[in-house]
């Protein structure tokens, strides 16, 4: 077990180096001169050259990359925002909390609705109920999240005055963003629950239980559900990580000060160090969360070791938006 965990942690190193390389490449192809960006247009050419020298922009690319990695590892330096001059790391850390809360809420909403719909459609397989569930869950997968968001704002904020339209000054502000992100993931949970339920219901021990004369309810809820939930739980675990950076659009619509909005704002402000530094931090956090999720699953059920290690493919398809 310990060996497995150590192996997983060691695997992180090449991944993180690779991610930082991608970000670094994007950084080097970014338009505009970083030195001039920092100094502004009123700076003279000499000042810009001086700043370039100071930033090490005249060094060979490989030297710059090594320094980039060194700064990250030794100083936690992911670059400074052009806009505020503050380190990107210290700007993004408080936002991770906000995004984290929304993600947990959204995954909970999506999973609960998805699991319920999935169970219903598995129990009523190939009936109109099954089709209806498919259509409902697919509806939320087919409407752009921000349209759902704007419609919900219209209903709950503009017309009913129940919830705030933007910002999260109170706990109420979290409700709509969570709901929007949650609804869009319902379809995938429904699908996983349904197929896993169908599979389990066909297994021998269920037949045995049935033969032993147990009630259908007892079979469904005690035997089938518990076993069918394993893949669902795994997918919940992985989407916890993946959704944190995926809320860019919803965070922007609702004016939520999370990491997604930070990236979007930085894009509109052409604040490239913040965009790329932010993306790198988010990638690192995601990778760590996925690692923790995987390890905790293995600790709970060592049989899962093979499936997780053999197939990163178990990760659900990354969602658009």
């Amino acid at each position: 077990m310990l060996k497995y965990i150590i192996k997983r942690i060691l695997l992180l190193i090449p991944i993180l180096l690779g991610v930082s390389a991608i970000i670094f490449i994007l950084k080097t192809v970014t338009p505009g001169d970083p030195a001039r960006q920092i100094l502004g247009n009123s700076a003279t050419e000499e000042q810009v050259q001086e700043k370039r020298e100071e930033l090490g922009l005249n060094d060979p690319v490989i030297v710059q990359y090594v320094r980039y990695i060194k700064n990250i590892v030794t100083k936690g330096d992911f670059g400074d925002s052009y806009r505020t001059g503050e380190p990107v790391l210290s700007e993004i850390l408080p936002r991770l909390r906000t995004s984290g809360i929304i993600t947990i809420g959204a995954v909970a909403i999506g999973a609960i609705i998805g699991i319920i719909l999935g169970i219903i459609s598995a129990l009523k397989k190939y009936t109109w109920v099954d089709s209806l569930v498919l259509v409902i869950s697919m509806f939320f997968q087919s409407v752009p999240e921000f349209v759902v968001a704007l419609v919900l704002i219209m209903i709950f904020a503009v017309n009913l005055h129940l919830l705030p339209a933007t910002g999260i000054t109170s706990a109420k502000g979290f409700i709509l963003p969570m709901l929007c992100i949650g609804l869009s993931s319902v379809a995938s949970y429904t699908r996983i629950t349904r197929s896993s339920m169908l599979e389990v219901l066909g297994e021998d021990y269920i037949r045995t239980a049935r033969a032993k004369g147990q009630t259908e309810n007892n079979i469904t809820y005690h035997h089938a559900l518990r076993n069918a939930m394993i893949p669902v739980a795994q997918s919940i675990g992985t989407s916890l990580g993946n959704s944190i950076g995926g809320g860019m659009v919803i965070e922007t619509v609702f004016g939520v000060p999370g990491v997604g909005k930070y990236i979007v704002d930085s894009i509109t402000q052409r604040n490239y160090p913040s965009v790329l530094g932010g993306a790198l931090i988010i990638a690192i956090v995601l990778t760590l969360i996925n690692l923790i999720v995987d390890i905790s699953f293995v600790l709970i059920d060592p049989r899962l070791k093979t499936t997780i290690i053999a197939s990163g493919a178990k990760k659900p398809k990354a969602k658009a938006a």
Partner: protein
Amino acid sequence: MKMKKVLGLALASVMTISMAAAAFAEEGGLAGANCDPANTEKTEESITIAFGSEPSTLYGPATGNTENESQMIASVLTDNLVAYNAQTGEIEPQLATAWEWVDDTHCRFTLRDDVTMTDGSPLVADDVVYSAKIWRDQNATNETGSIFTDTADAVADDEHTVTLEFTSNAPDIIRMLTWSQYGIVSEEEVEAAGGLEEVGKKPLVGSGPYKFVSWTNGQNVIVERNEEYWNPDYAGYFKQIVFTFTADPAARIMAVQSGDADVAYAVPTAQASTFAANDAVKVVNYTFDQVNHLWFNMGENAGATADQKVREAIDKALDYDAITAVGSAGLCTPALGYFVPGNTYYNEVYTAEERAVDIDGAKALLAEAGYADGLTLRALGLSDIEPVYVVMQANLAQAGITLELDMPDTAQFVQQSAGGDYDLIVVGEYAAARFPSLFIFFQNAYTFCIGGPKWTTDEINAQIHDFIFEEDAETAKELGKAFEETMKESTIQTNLFPAVNSAVINPELKGFNTLERGFMDPSGFYK
């Protein structure tokens, strides 16, 4: 009992007023700014003002930034030597009780002796001297510094008298000092905030009606009423002002509709106008002394627009009626001169016929210039007049010009506009009076705005100078006309339509006042 009656009466009158205002707005008129009597009440309430973009600094003069949002927020934190009364058009005392010209370039100000700054220390002449040095030294390449020479002096004559040296005693130079970037701060405050670099992030400076509380990046700026404010005539109705930043104007309006915000500022006029008949909100549209102009890049980095034929072709291809209809939501007519009709210096240099669309003429000119096969140009713009660019894009497409649009946030716009990477830009110039910085887009020393600034001639400079410094207003008007003719002949810029500012606000809100350039005054609101 009696109390209730009074309250009921007050409520009824509030409702009538707001209904009247709504009715006015329904007619689609230009209304709403500077028409309410002043507030006299203090409450514990808070107001939320939703801006479209977050400023990069809250004390622009320190870094030479003049973003709109930054100026509006700064205007409640600091006071100026003098103030402008929008109702009377007079310059009034603020921190200075009196001022007189000592000679052609020196003006002496007498300061109030009852003003305290944020740190509790009294306002003294040295504070003005310190502030003037910031205006001069940190702003050499922008308009703030344009009224001072590099060596301009600021001398404290005694504790409450200060003499400032200007470039000239141009007629309207003192009026410029009413602009929000000329707020007075003290050196101690700036040092306490961490120096000039830091003061933009934590502007606990000045003697204004509100004090800075916090700035949470990406979220809001909060200011609080200054309970020790020196001016007894001013009563801040709101204890707290929260400025929020939401890029999407639709989201800003929805925030007002839902009660989250009280003011959605800088909404495209066409968008605001669709709410005219909506009782849940009030629409404020107003013009101010500014025409939106289209400027061509004619500077060192200029591309095709360096060629006058291309500029003329653009001029001919544009549909000014459509641009105006979309840009002002039908509230204005196309501009026929550089100034706004009603301005003292207004001249009609174009006829309506000259503004007619002439696609064939445009194409012929482009062919002559060697662009028969088409041409791609890049335009830089601010999102609240994005619709205008979209119309221009369609107009120019007919003549074979592909227009690429770039609409960054305000801070980035200001940065980029100085860079010369773009071919076209729509910027209005605030031309209420003959400020010494008027026609700043032609003045080489200043970086703002592509097009004009990097391209000028001695003749043009002379014409501008004569116009600004002429003592007689009638003669000035004639001189102004001559200059406008020059611009027209060489197609240096083209006039689009009088700028309209629009906001969607809580219908209960009164006291929408404006500062210079049509900026909203956040401190004047009350219910």
